[in-house]
């Protein structure tokens, strides 16, 4: 090595935020044609570092060289000029715009004064064919799948002539199929001479695709190793600073009576299309049922129907025999359903409330938190303190605004709140999305603990691994219907993948 100049070299980059050193003298080299993985816990400073490379932040100290030349990247424009492109963790796409509009934004081809949409669409088409990135140039972003949105992001960088691509947690939002496709795309990109920095929490992906791994902990580089010379256990240990077990260890389930019985559930969306189509499902006490499926097959609608946020047209939802369909969220919550929502910022938390206020978000009106219409702050604080400790929510204080907690800690606060309700049924939607392995381990242990206490747990996840490791039984959802049920120990990724894709070979019901 040493001979080739790295395409990007970071030298002693330091970035401070009030009260925290997000990047502490980080150095890193990206070689041409390599996939360089960046690994670290939530809040380790990965996104911050990449935002510096992309010109969104300025480092407080340190320097950057691109192709051997020192550069100052003071804006995304400058980064783009240098051939750097970034696919952000949260997509930077304008929802009401078309795919083409998003791609050309900022460097639009023109004819006279007008935008030359024809030329633009043709260019998009060409790029998408060259790299195998299937996108529909004329679709609006809010109409396309998350996977396609991500491909749009990639085309966006390619359209600007990027040679250096940064992917910030690209797989967190993808289905297994989409992840596979993305891997293929990334390989193709490096084959075409591009270089990639990849941020991910998934060790499997790192092992599969990267050439080099750099591990960051608390803003510092812990190590940088060749992927071929390491293994997942070593990586995890370096990242968290302790030993992590991957195999979710759990005793076999001892399911009891049916807790949740959903039968013939039908619901239509605003356009009148059936989103839940004669859906049947049951969850028993003491078991975790995982719902596997490609995003957009009715998972969100199912959860909404179960929690009272969506009206259903027909069918029944029974919790321990009590009919709950079309009841209010409060009624359902009191009947014994708890819910870890998919979008924690939108549904899970009031970000401008303190941690303690968020802890009682669903129980504030009950004794002892409210007495005679007045809030009882002593009780609320006591409860918050107790849960923060029990669930290891890392926050400066319970009066801190939820907004300033890290994603993982926000999630822990929600789980604490929901689990503490002691529900008969716990619905967990994407509970580990975007969390680091340490946090994931914690969350999954909580789900299993619930099960072991004899509660019913319904897990919705796009992570096949999670579904396979955590569930006791897997139900596959396709086009608003449960198309099959399998036991994790009797199935594999391939079979599940086929079922999720709508292959109708239904297997017999597993239990009974």
């Amino acid at each position: 090595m040493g001979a080739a100049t790295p395409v990007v070299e970071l030298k002693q980059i330091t970035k401070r935020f009030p009260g925290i050193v997000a990047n502490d003298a980080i150095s890193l080299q990206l070689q041409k044609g390599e996939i360089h993985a960046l690994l670290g816990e939530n809040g380790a400073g990965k996104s911050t570092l990449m935002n510096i490379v992309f010109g969104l932040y300025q480092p407080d100290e340190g320097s950057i060289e691109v192709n051997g030349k020192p550069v100052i990247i003071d804006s995304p424009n400058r980064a783009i000029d240098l051939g750097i492109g970034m696919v952000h963790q949260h997509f930077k796409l304008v929802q009401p715009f078309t795919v083409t509009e998003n791609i050309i934004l900022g460097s639009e081809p023109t004819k006279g004064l007008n935008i030359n949409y024809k030329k633009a669409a043709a260019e998009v088409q060409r790029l998408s064919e060259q790299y195998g990135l299937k996108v529909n140039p004329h679709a609006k972003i809010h109409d396309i799948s998350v996977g396609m949105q991500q491909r749009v992001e990639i085309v966006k960088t390619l359209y600007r002539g990027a040679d250096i691509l940064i992917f910030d947690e690209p797989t967190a939002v993808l289905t297994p199929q989409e992840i596979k496709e993305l891997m293929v795309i990334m390989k193709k990109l490096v084959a075409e001479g591009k270089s990639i920095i990849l941020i991910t929490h998934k060790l499997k992906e790192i092992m599969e695709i990267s050439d080099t791994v750099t591990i960051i902990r608390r803003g510092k580089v812990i190590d940088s190793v060749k992927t071929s010379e390491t293994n997942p256990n070593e990586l995890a240990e370096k990242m968290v600073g302790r030993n992590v077990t991957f195999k979710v260890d759990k005793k076999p389930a001892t399911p009891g009576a049916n807790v949740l019985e959903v039968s013939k559930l039908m619901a239509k969306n605003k356009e009148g299309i059936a989103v839940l189509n004669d859906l049947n499902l049951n969850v028993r006490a003491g078991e975790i049922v995982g719902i596997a499926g490609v995003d957009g097959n009715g998972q969100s609608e199912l959860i909404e129907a179960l929690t009272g946020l969506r009206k259903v047209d027909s069918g029944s939802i029974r919790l321990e025999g009590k009919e709950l369909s079309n009841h209010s969220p409060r009624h359902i919550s009191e009947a014994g359903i708890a819910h870890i929502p998919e979008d924690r910022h939108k549904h899970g938390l009031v970000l401008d409330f303190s941690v303690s206020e968020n802890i009682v978000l669903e129980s504030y009106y009950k004794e002892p938190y409210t007495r005679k219409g007045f809030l009882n702050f002593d009780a609320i604080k006591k409860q918050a303190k107790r849960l923060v400790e029990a669930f290891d929510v890392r926050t400066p204080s319970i009066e801190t605004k939820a907004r300033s907690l890290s994603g993982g800690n926000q999630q822990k606060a929600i789980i604490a709140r929901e689990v503490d309700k002691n529900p008969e049924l716990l619905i967990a939607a994407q509970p580990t999305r975007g969390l680091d392995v340490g946090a994931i381990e914690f969350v999954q242990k909580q789900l299993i603990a619930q099960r072991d206490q004899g509660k019913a747990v319904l897990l919705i996840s796009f992570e096949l691994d999670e579904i396979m490791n955590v569930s006791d039984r897997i139900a596959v959802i396709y086009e608003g219907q449960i198309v099959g049920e399998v036991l994790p120990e009797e199935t594999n990724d391939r079979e599940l993948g086929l079922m999720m894709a709508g292959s109708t070979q239904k297997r017999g019901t597993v239990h009974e």
Partner: protein
Amino acid sequence: MDLLTIGQIINTTLVFATALIFASLGGIFSEKSGVTNLGLEGFMVFGAFAAGIGAHYAQEAGMGGTTSAWMGVLLAIVLGVLVSLIHAVASITFKADQIISGIVINFLAAGSTLYLVKLLFEGSGDSPLVQGFSKFNVPFLENIPLLGEAFFKNVYPTTYLAILFVFLTYYIMFKTPFGLRLRSVGEHPSAADTVGVKVRRYRYVAVMISGALAAIGGAAITLTTTGTFSHNTVSGQGYIAIAAMIFGKWNPIGAFGAAVFFGFSQAIRNYVQLFEWSQSIPQEIIFMLPYLLTIIVLVAAVGRSSAPSALGEPYDPGKR
């Protein structure tokens, strides 16, 4: 009702609508870029003021009625742009609450224009009467039945200008790179930023255009309706323009339709009084009519309105 009356109602409607059209287009520019503009009223006041004194001094300098009126419009544009910078600096550079900053504009407009009028015209509460724009007829076209009466007879140049601006705005917004970028900045500023669109710069430009257009709206009132500028020249039309913009779903054509609707419901209030039966209804009911009608239409026709996603949020690149 005969065709002639219908034509005349349309004509009156357009006179009322003109200022609203300009101002609501101004609102669209600003809000499409993500900057709430509650200051339309203030910009209109500044524009009406500038038109009044601009036309007055131009007339003093010996310019003809129409030329001096255009000078008034010009001054209105200049002043509109200048004061819009206050809104821009506060809400874009200093990330002030945009609603508050807009209300500040209204306060400053109310105070400073009258203060200046008093300083300039020896304590008088309004600017001297100016000739302003004249009505004109379009040869030949004026003779078309109904349409002639409605659109080509007794019209002001400002009305045509307003309609021209509707299409111009539509074109700029939806056909040019400038418009695409401007909208992207209002929908998802950090997306725009990451592709090199200068978010703040676009917002500045949008707010400045907004100030200019709303000021032309105010100028149109002075130069076609009142002939002078005083404290009540604009009297709440800026707020109606905001309503028109929201009503029109931030689309220039929609806002135009809404402005015409508001103009119509104002015009109708006079025509209703011509009917015998109206004498038996208390006047207040007739005066309420336009506003009641608006609410009814809102309830019946418009669902949730589609504001630009990032409307009202100052852009802070450090925040995700």
